């Protein structure tokens, strides 16, 4: 039996080693390989929290091993045995105190990052707006200032803050581009905001993160970050060469099913706002939440006012002419 246990211990170590080795290629760990300021800030918080946790775990595991070895019930064990000792004010203060301090520190950084992420990542560049609609089982992106639409891929200019405005015309999904930053839910009848930005050009993996049924596993999309010039060129190309998305075309598109990457030179006016409103948006006075209902400074930057969904859509258009 003892041998069995030894063997078991070594095999755990060997297997853990294998796991670590097999994951050596750092670029595959996309969450840990950020390409934009939002993902970068989130990674910093991940590292801070991991370090703070390690400060607790490692010593405790050390103490645990020491105690279990030293106080085993063996005839020749000389370690003290105090069966009635059951309290120590000092020790209690120590182990209530240390976790409280750690939580306070982590709470501070959490609050700081939370507030920071409600604002556009850089202040001196004019942001662009991309509206995102999750459908069964595809993603539609509409560009209010360019009046073009795409399905299952998005192009964005690198170095420019992007305000994604999210809704859903199907069960709620979640919009996630790990290398640019964390996700936000897309919900029917609501429109919510998420600031992201790519610092470098490149193709980034995006996916739906919240289960939406049969075709959910196929809801991945590509985000192509290109230079501003290339972005404008691409938009012109789409404008020139792609078909228009008509109301009937949208109806077809929104039927459950998968889709290829598609581009459209135009879309029915106010499509995104219509989607939000028909799914219950008219019942609520929704702002485009940027994750902060109090601090609306981020809102104003993109030229929206907060008087409700219908309005904000209109404003966006007039501002971006």
């Amino acid at each position: 039996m003892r041998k069995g246990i030894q063997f078991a211990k070594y095999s755990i170590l060997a297997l853990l080693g294998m796991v670590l080795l097999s994951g050596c290629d750092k670029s595959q760990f996309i969450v840990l390989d950020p390409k934009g300021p939002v993902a970068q800030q989130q990674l910093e918080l991940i590292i801070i929290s991991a370090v703070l946790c390690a400060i607790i775990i490692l010593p405790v595991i050390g103490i645990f091993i020491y105690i279990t070895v030293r106080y085993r019930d063996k005839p020749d064990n000389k370690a003290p045995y105090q069966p009635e000792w059951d309290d120590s004010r000092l020790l209690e203060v120590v182990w209530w105190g240390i976790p409280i301090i750690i939580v306070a520190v982590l709470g501070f950084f959490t609050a700081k990052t939370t507030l920071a992420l409600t604002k556009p990542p850089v202040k001196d560049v004019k942001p662009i707006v991309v509206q995102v609609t999750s459908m069964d089982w595809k993603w539609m992106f509409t560009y209010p200032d360019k009046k073009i639409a795409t399905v299952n891929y998005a192009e964005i200019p690198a170095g420019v803050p992007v305000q994604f405005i999210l809704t859903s015309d199907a069960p709620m999904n979640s919009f996630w581009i790990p290398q640019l930053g964390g996700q936000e839910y897309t919900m029917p009848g609501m429109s919510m905001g998420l600031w992201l930005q790519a610092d470098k050009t490149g193709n980034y993996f995006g996916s739906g993160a919240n289960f939406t049924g049969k075709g959910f596993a196929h809801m991945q999309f590509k985000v192509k970050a290109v230079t501003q010039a290339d972005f404008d060129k691409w938009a012109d190309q789409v404008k020139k060469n792609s078909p228009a998305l008509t109301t009937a075309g949208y109806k077809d598109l929104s039927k459950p099913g998968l889709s290829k990457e598609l581009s459209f030179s135009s879309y029915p006016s106010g499509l995104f706002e219509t989607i939000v409103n028909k799914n219950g948006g008219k019942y609520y006075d929704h702002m485009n939440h940027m994750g902060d209902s109090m601090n609306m400074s981020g809102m104003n930057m993109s030229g929206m006012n907060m008087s409700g969904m219908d309005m904000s859509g209109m404003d966006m258009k007039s501002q971006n002419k």
Partner: protein
Amino acid sequence: MNTSGFFVTGDPMIYGADVSIVLVSVAIIFYLTYFKKWGWLWREWITTVDHKRIGIMYLIASLLMLFRGGVDAILMRLQLAIPNAHFLESEHYNEIFTTHGTIMILFMAMPFMFALFNMVVPLQIGARDVAYPALNAISFWLFFLGAMLFNLSFVIGGSPDAGWLSYPPLSENQFSPGPGQNFWIWGVQISGIGSLATGINFVVTILKMRAPGMRLRDMPLFTWSVMASSIAILGVFPILTVSLIMLTIDRLFGGHFFTMTAGGNPMMWVNLIWMWGHPEVYIVVLPAFGVFSEVVATFAKKRIFGYGSMVFSMIAISVVSYYTWVHHFFTMGAGADVNIVFAICTMIIAIPTGVKVFNWLFTLYRGRITVTQPLLWFYAMIPCFLVGGSTGVMLAAAPADYQYHNSYFLIAHFHQVLIGGVVFGYLAGMYYWWPKVFGFKLNDKLGKWAFWLWQIGFYVCFMPQYALGFMGMTRRIYTYNQTMGWDMGWAPLNFISTIGAFLMGAGFVFQAWQIIYSIKHGERDVTGDAWNGRTLEWSIPSPPPAYNFAILPTIKGRDSWWYQKQEMQNGTYKQEPVKYEPIHMPKNTGVPFIMSCFFFVAGFGFTFEWFWMGIIGLIGVAITLFVRSFQYDTDYYITVEEIERTEKALRNNASVQRTAN
């Protein structure tokens, strides 16, 4: 409703299950008839109100459900082992992860917990049964028939496939038509009513049924943990009941609480279900903490360290657990201020939990540790729960959660706390109290094989999943590398993870073998005190007689049995003269079972939207309630002669077994 698809068809695995279900049923019916056991089954088990027997039935049911949930897990891991696999189709995979989650939490963890409640609490506080024995039987049968209704969906009507918490609008008629989702609602609803009743029962039992002299601060920590857990049940299970009724109204009567159109608000469901769902995970983990406290003190042969601190931290956990639910949807745009509050509340929960770990370690410090099977599971919990708890704190940092949410990082985290904390805890409890309930210990050697397979399997299965989360793999995808030409490099780690799942499965097989083997060959416990225990349950024979305590003990302080044993050794213990008195006991009753059967009929009817059947079922429930309230002959007395006879037999039996071994 179209019922042409009444029986689930088209999948060879389902046909296999159909055949095995029929075969097992025939075998059971044959066995009961051939050996004339129907009467025995009815008298001894189905109508019993004895908390020990109810506990045993809970345990059997939960182990069966662990098997079913485990098979689901293995099927999922098989599908994900290689990219582009065609082992399961999308909808089948979706059904399997939905039933896996629902079964493991509601039909495995909950009944396993109630098994421990029932087997232990009355014995620990020196009571002869719970406060409401018939209600206790109702709780069990509601759970059991709710679970059976849910499991029936596997072969009749089709399983639910909208995830274990059934987020609308996906779970509404528009996207999930048919009986599958209704099975989920009614299975959970019926067993949930049972859980709520159990919560009430144990709060009252602990407050009102303690042996004379036992103050609250003399109670064993397991009993305290049951108290904390039951209080949380009282607070949150009504929310579950109401949420399910609202979803029922949406689905059956065309309501619009959570629909996409007509002003329905799906996010309201998400709030409600997590107001129940988050405290629910603390409800299941608190009793596991209680188990560890008993196990550690017993095998360190030392008083539990920081008793006051332990009690305070459990109550703190059960209270703060009400204020953390939003951390399940930081990414739903509640706003920065809301996110910060709930992030910090979530982190605060880690403080009392961490304190408990320190107190357990310092109970071992300056003790004399005997390593036994229950303690091994405690040892396994410490590193596992520490790491799982830490990743929980990492998840609590709201902005970082934007990157973890719905990813395999989250999956790895909650399996690590739920397996490392809850399952390891319950298994420790099972090994610890097994000799008390059944009168024999579980085989050591097979137990160690099971233990190490579980341990290795666990880390091999779930550590890669943390890495997969960082690689951007989201939960609930049935296949990967299939669309868009992305190769994210998920394949090797998924393969390793599948190996781990199989190792854990092998561990479970060893445990099943261990139980069967030990029934015949396990070391018999003739003393009633198999582990040199500290608390009252070890002062009576194993298994205890129906009335538990022939004479109710008088309690002088914490760990009273331990100190009584010391006095007995010193010779300072003064044996009171034995004078038995007739014992007042509750009578068996068939009402709980019959009533639960009517609930089953109602649930089945509403599931298929056969309202006539649902209403018949509910009328049946009302009638059984009515009948029960006019039953006056519900109790009896055990005579002094019978007590004398039983106690003598228990002693003789013990000596016979002693010579046999």
